[in-house]
C-alpha cells in the first residue's frame, strides 16, 4: 500500500499512470518503477523462479531482482525493480506457463529431488536422445521471448573525458567527488539510480553541495559496466553508451546487502532490509504490515527505525549474534519489541496459496508475520575493482574482501573498501588522493577509523533436512546442491561455479557468491580468503543488446565515378571497404545476361571498367629499383623506362600476398599497383621495410588521390585516339605519361581481360570527367561499362589468377603456376630463403586450368567445391564460369601435383554429393597466343 505523501519521495502523485500486469490493470505514479507500483498495489508475486517455478517477489529493489523480470511487448527481460513505469505498459512475467499466478510448470518443484546439481551432465549425455532433450530444454528454460521483428536500434556511442570519475553516488562517492572537485579536478560522478544519494535516497545536504558544484557532473540513471585499461569505463545510459576516459577513478560502488539462507527464504514477502527501505523512502510504499527482522549488524537496527516510522509492526528481531550491543537494541526495547539474540529463522511457513510468508519458525518459537526483512551483512560491489586489477584480501574484521593493493590511478572508498561507518570520511580521503594523482592539490591523507564491529555475519546459513534453503535465487540452487558438488570433487571455486551454475544467472552472483564460497570454505576446511573469488569479467551488469549492437562505423570508399555507376544501373558489391559495380543492370535482362553482355562488349567492341580501387603507389629515389628488387619476386633493376612488368609479392614464408604492375617512369621513379584489398597493408609493409633498410628512396601512397579506369576491346584504341596526345602505337606493357581529355594522365598498356587495353590513371578530381569523355567518345562504338563479374569472367578466359581467390594464406608462387616470375638468382627478396627451401621439396598441389565437357548442361560446380580422386579430397575449385567465347564451363582448380598433366581427368563433387567429370586444360583458354592483347598496330 502507498504511504501518506512525504518530502523527498521520488513519485509525483499528480501524474498517475495506468498500466497492466498479467492481464490486470493497476495505477502507479510518475517516478515509480514497475516494481514499486506493483508493490503499492499489494502485488507480491512478480515472477516465477528459473528451475522450480516457485513464486518470487522483490528482494533487493536495487536492479538485481532477477525473479522480477518481465516482458514488455517485444522487449524481453525488463527489470521491474529498476525500470521506470510508463503509462500503458502491458507487462507479463517471463518464464511461466499460463501466467504467474497459475504457472503450470510449478509442478517441477515436486520433482526437485530428481534434479540434483549437475543433473544435465549426468542425464543428458546420450547422443541418440539429445535432440529430444534439447527440444524439451529449449521449451522449458530461458527467460523472455525475443521478437525477431524488433527494429535495430542504432543506439549512439559517445566518448567522455574527466579527471576523476567517481562510480557510485552514495555517501562515500559524493564525499569523494566533492573533495576531488574542491582540489580543482574536473569530476564526473555516476550512479545507477534515478537520483544521487545512495542510502540517503537523495535527501541530504551533501547531495545538494555536489549537484551545485561547478566542477562536478552528476550522471544518474547510468551504470559503470566495466573497467578497462587506462581507466576506460563504459557508462551505460538508457539511450547510449559513453566510453569514459578518466585520469583517476574512485570506486565507491558500495555493497550488495546479502540474503540469509534458511528454508523457504525465497517466499514473497521475504526481502532485504535495504530493499524495504528503498520502497518506503523513495516510493512511499509500505511493503508489509507485520514483520520479523532478521538481523546481524547495526544496519538492521537503523532500518528498524524506518520500518516503525512507516507504521510497520515489528513482531520481533531475530539476531544471529549472541550479544547485541545495548546501543543498538535500546530503542526497540523501549517499544517493547522483543530482540532474540543468538537466534535464527529455521524456516519460513508459506500462506495456504504459497504466495507469501505467513510465519517464521525460530529457535524461540513460531512468529506470525506477512514479511521478513533481512539485514545480516554485505558483500562488496567489487567487480570493477577486480577488473581494474586490484589485489583483494579477505578481512576477518569485517568478513568481506577488501582492496589490498589498488592499481595506479584507482581508488576505493566506502562499503566496497570495508568502511561501513565512516563512509563520508573515507570518501573524502579517496577523492583527495585521486585529485592529487591527477596533479590537483596534495593528498590530504585523511585518517579513517576502522570498523569496531563486523557489519557482516560470517555464516548466515541455516541447514534444514528438507532443503529449499536457497542460496542462489537466479538458478534455484540450495545449500545441498553446493555440498553435493563439492562432494563430487568440484571443490575449487571456479569448478564449483561451472558445475553447479552458482553465480551464472542474470545477477551474476551478486547475492550468491559470498554464501557459496562460505559453504565451500566450510566443506573444505578452508577460510574464505583461501577459497577466493571467481574471475570478474566485463560487463559486470547486463548491457542491452541495443547498446552493444549500437551505432558502429563501417567506412565506405567510393571512386570519383561512383555517381556515374549509380546512374548506369550499377548493382553494388563490397570489395573490402570499397563499393564496386558487380554489374550494370539492364531492364528486362537477367544478372547473367547483363554480365555476359558486358563481356561481349569487351570481346567484340569496347568496354570501360573503373579500376580506381587498385592500390596505387609511387616510389622515387636513386635506390627505388633496388627497393623493388627486394620486395617483389621478379627483377626490376633492368626494366626499361617506359615499360611495365607484372609483379608478385611474397611474405617471408614464401606465400603469395599480393600482385600488381610496376611501371618505370624514370630511372629513379616507379609507379606501381597493388590489389584492391591489399593496398593499405602493402603500403604499410613497404614503409616498414623502407624504415629497416634505410634505402635512398621514398614511397608515396596515391591510392585515394588517383582515379583509374581500364579501356579495353578491339575498338578501344579508336575510342581513345581522339582524346589523347599519346601515340597509341605503344607496345604491349608500355607506360606513357601524357594528356587525356586535357588532363595529365599515366597510360599503361595492359592485357588482364585479354584484349587491347589501356589503364588510364588521372588525379581523383578529374576521374569523373575523363570517364564521361571516354563514354561519350565510345558511344558510336557501342561502349559499355563493365563490372567486376564481367572482368572476372574475361580474365578467367585468359587464365589470369586473382590473388585471394585463386590463392590462399598458404599458396606459394609455384603452386599458383607463377614459377616463371620467381627469380631465385637475385641477391635477395622477401621470401627468397623460404622459396629456396620449398623448391627442394615435392610440391603438394598445383593450380591448373580445367574444362567441363562441352555437352555439360547439368548443375555446374561452384568455387570451393572439392576435387575428388579415389574417394579422397585431391584439391578444390578456385574459379569457374561458363565461357561465352568457348561455349563451355572453364575454371581454375588446385589438384595434387601428380594430377597436373594436360587432359588428366578428375572429378568435382557438388554440394549434394554428385560427381562431375572435368579434365585439366592448358591456359589461356582464350587467345592462347595472346595476340589480341598484344596487338599494337
Amino acid at each position, binding site marked *: 500500500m502507498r504511504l501518506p505523501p512525504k518530502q523527498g519521495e521520488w513519485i509525483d502523485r499528480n501524474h498517475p499512470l495506468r498500466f497492466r500486469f498479467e492481464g490486470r490493470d493497476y495505477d502507479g505514479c510518475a517516478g515509480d518503477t514497475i516494481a514499486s507500483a506493483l508493490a503499492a498495489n499489494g502485488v507480491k508475486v512478480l515472477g516465477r523462479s528459473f528451475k522450480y517455478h516457485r513464486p518470487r517477489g522483490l528482494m533487493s529493489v536495487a536492479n538485481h531482482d532477477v525473479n522480477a523480470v518481465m516482458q514488455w511487448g517485444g522487449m524481453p527481460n525488463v527489470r521491474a525493480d529498476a525500470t521506470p513505469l510508463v503509462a500503458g505498459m502491458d507487462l507479463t512475467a517471463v518464464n511461466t506457463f499460463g501466467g504467474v499466478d497459475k504457472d503450470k510448470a510449478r509442478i517441477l518443484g515436486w520433482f526437485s529431488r530428481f534434479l540434483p546439481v549437475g543433473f544435465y551432465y549426468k542425464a543428458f549425455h546420450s547422443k541418440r536422445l539429445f535432440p529430444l532433450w534439447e527440444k524439451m530444454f529449449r521449451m522449458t528454460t530461458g527467460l523472455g521471448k525475443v521478437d525477431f521483428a524488433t527494429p535495430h536500434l542504432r543506439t*549512439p*556511442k*559517445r*566518448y*567522455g*573525458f574527466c579527471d576523476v570519475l567517481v562510480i557510485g553516488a552514495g555517501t562515500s562517492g559524493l564525499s569523494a567527488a566533492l573533495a576531488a572537485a574542491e582540489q580543482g579536478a574536473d569530476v564526473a560522478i555516476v550512479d545507477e539510480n534515478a537520483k544521487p544519494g545512495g542510502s540517503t535516497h537523495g535527501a541530504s545536504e551533501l547531495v545538494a553541495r555536489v549537484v551545485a558544484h561547478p566542477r562536478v557532473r552528476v550522471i544518474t540513471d547510468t551504470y559503470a559496466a566495466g573497467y578497462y585499461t587506462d581507466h576506460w569505463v563504459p557508462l551505460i545510459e538508457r539511450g547510449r553508451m559513453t*566510453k569514459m*576516459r578518466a585520469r583517476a577513478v574512485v570506486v565507491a560502488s558500495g555493497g550488495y546487502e546479502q540474503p540469509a539462507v534458511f528454508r523457504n527464504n525465497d517466499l514473497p514477502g521475504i526481502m532485504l532490509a535495504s530493499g524495504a527501505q528503498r520502497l518506503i523512502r523513495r516510493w512511499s510504499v509500505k511493503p508489509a504490515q507485520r514483520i520479523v527482522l532478521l538481523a546481524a549488524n547495526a544496519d538492521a537496527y537503523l532500518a528498524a527505525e524506518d520500518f516503525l516510522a512507516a507504521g510497520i509492526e515489528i513482531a520481533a528481531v531475530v539476531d544471529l549474534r549472541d550479544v547485541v550491543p545495548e546501543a543498538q537494541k535500546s530503542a526497540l526495547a523501549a517499544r517493547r519489541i522483543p530482540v532474540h539474540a543468538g537466534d535464527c529463522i529455521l524456516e519460513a511457513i508459506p500462506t495456504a496459496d504459497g504466495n507469501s510468508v505467513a510465519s517464521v519458525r525460530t529457535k524461540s518459537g513460531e512468529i506470525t508475520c506477512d514479511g521478513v526483512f533481512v539485514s545480516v551483512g554485505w558483500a562488496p560491489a567489487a567487480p570493477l575493482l577486480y577488473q581494474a586489477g586490484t589485489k583483494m584480501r579477505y578481512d576477518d574484521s569485517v568478513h568481506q574482501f577488501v582492496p589490498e593493493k589498488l592499481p595506479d590511478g584507482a581508488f576505493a572508498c566506502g562499503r566496497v573498501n570495508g568502511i561501513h561507518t565512516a563512509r563520508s570520511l573515507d570518501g573524502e580521503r579517496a577523492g583527495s588522493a585521486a585529485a592529487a594523482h591527477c596533479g590537483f592539490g596534495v593528498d590530504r591523507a585523511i585518517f579513517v577509523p576502522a570498523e569496531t564491529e563486523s557489519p557482516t555475519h560470517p555464516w548466515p546459513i541455516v541447514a534444514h533436512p528438507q532443503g529449499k534453503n536457497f542460496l542462489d535465487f537466479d538458478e534455484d540452487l540450495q545449500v545441498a546442491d553446493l555440498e553435493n558438488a563439492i562432494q563430487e570433487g568440484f571443490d575449487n571455486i571456479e569448478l564449483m561455479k561451472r558445475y553447479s551454475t552458482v553465480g551464472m544467472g542474470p545477477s551474476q552472483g551478486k547475492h550468491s557468491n559470498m554464501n557459496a564460497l562460505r559453504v565451500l570454505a566450510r566443506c573444505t576446511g578452508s577460510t574464505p580468503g583461501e577459497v577466493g573469488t571467481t574471475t570478474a569479467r566485463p560487463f559486470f551488469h547486463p548491457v542491452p543488446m541495443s547498446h552493444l549492437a549500437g551505432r558502429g*562505423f*563501417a*567506412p*565506405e*570508399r*567510393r*571512386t*570519383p565515378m*561512383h555517381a556515374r555507376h549509380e546512374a548506369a544501373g550499377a548493382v553494388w558489391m563490397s570489395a573490402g571497404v*570499397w563499393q564496386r559495380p558487380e554489374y550494370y543492370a539492364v531492364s528486362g535482362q537477367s544478372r547473367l545476361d547483363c554480365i555476359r553482355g558486358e563481356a561481349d562488349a569487351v570481346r567484340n567492341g569496347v568496354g570501360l571498367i573503373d579500376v*580506381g580501387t587498385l592500390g596505387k603507389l*609511387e616510389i*622515387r*629515389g636513386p635506390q627505388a629499383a633496388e627497393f623493388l628488387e627486394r620486395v617483389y619476386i621478379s627483377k626490376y633493376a633492368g626494366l626499361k623506362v617506359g615499360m611495365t612488368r607484372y609483379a608478385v609479392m611474397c611474405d617471408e614464408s614464401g606465400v603469395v600476398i599480393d600482385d600488381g604492375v610496376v611501371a618505370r617512369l624514370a630511372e629513379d621513379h616507379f609507379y606501381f599497383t597493388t590489389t584492391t584489398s591489399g593496398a593499405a597493408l602493402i603500403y604499410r609493409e613497404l614503409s616498414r621495410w623502407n624504415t629497416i633498410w634505410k634505402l*635512398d628512396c*621514398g614511397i*608515396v601512397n*596515391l*591510392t*585515394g*588521390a*588517383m582515379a583509374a579506369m581500364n579501356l579495353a576491346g578491339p575498338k578501344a584504341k579508336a575510342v581513345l585516339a581522339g582524346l589523347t596526345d599519346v601515340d597509341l602505337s605503344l607496345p604491349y606493357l608500355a607506360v606513357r605519361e601524357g594528356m587525356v581529355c586535357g588532363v595529365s594522365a599515366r597510360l599503361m598498356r595492359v592485357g588482364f581481360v585479354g584484349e587491347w587495353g589501356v589503364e588510364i590513371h588521372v*588525379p*581523383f*578530381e578529374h576521374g569523373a570527367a575523363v570517364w564521361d569523355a571516354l563514354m561519350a567518345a565510345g558511344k558510336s562504338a557501342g561502349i559499355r561499362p563493365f563490372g567486376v563479374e564481367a572482368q572476372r569472367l574475361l580474365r578467367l578466359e585468359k587464365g589470369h589468377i586473382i590473388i585471394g581467390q585463386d590463392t590462399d594464406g598458404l599458396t606459394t608462387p609455384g603452386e599458383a603456376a607463377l614459377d616463371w616470375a620467381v627469380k631465385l638468382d637475385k641477391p635477395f627478396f622477401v621470401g627468397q630463403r623460404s622459396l629456396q627451401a620449398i623448391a627442394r621439396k615435392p610440391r603438394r598441389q598445383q593450380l591448373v586450368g580445367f574444362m567441363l565437357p562441352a555437352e555439360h548442361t547439368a548443375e555446374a560446380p561452384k568455387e570451393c567445391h572439392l576435387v575428388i580422386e579415389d574417394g579422397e579430397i585431391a584439391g578444390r575449385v578456385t574459379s569457374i564460369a561458363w565461357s561465352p567465347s568457348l561455349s563451355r564451363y572453364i575454371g581454375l582448380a588446385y589438384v595434387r601435383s601428380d594430377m597436373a598433366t594436360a587432359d588428366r581427368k578428375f572429378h568435382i563433387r557438388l554440394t549434394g554429393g554428385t560427381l562431375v567429370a572435368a579434365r585439366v586444360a592448358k591456359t589461356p583458354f582464350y587467345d592462347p597466343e595472346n595476340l589480341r592483347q598484344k596487338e599494337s598496330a
Partner: protein
Amino acid sequence: MSVQFQDLSTTPRAGVKGPGAAEWLKQLGLPVPDVPNTWLPLGGALGGGLIARLGNTEFLVEGPESVKLAAPISHGVYPVLRQDTALVLKGARLNDLLLETCSVNFLAINRTTRPALLTSIVGVGVTAIPDGDELRLWCDSTYGEWFLDTLRTIAAELA
C-alpha cells in the same frame, strides 16, 4: 543545424615528404613548423593558407602558396599528390558531434600550440586542426562522400 559544414576541397593544396622536404620548403621561402604535428598560417590569417607538418618529414601546404611546390624537386624530396576532401566544421554542437565520432578530447587541446592531429573520425583517418571555435579536417577523397554523409546524419540527430 547546430553544426555547420563548409567544403574547402577545391582549395589548392600540395604535399611533400622525404628527408630533404623541410630544407626544400625553406628554400622555397615557406615557413616550416619546427615541431611535428603542428601548423603555421601562411600570409597572416588562415585565408592565406597554412603549412602543416604531419610528421618528421611530411608536409601539407594549402592555399595560394601551394603552387610553389610545383618547383623541381631535389634529392630526398618526394611530391605527394593531395586530392583531399577538406572541411571546416563549427557550431554550438560541434564538440558533441566530436564526442560521438572521435576518441580525441578536443576541448582539452591547447590551440595556442597550433596542433595538427592525425586521428580517426567515424573510422576514417583524418588530419584535424582545431582553430578557435572551428575544426579543419582533411581526409582521403574516396572516403569523402560517406564521411560527410555520416557526420551530417549524426549532426542532424544532435540538432
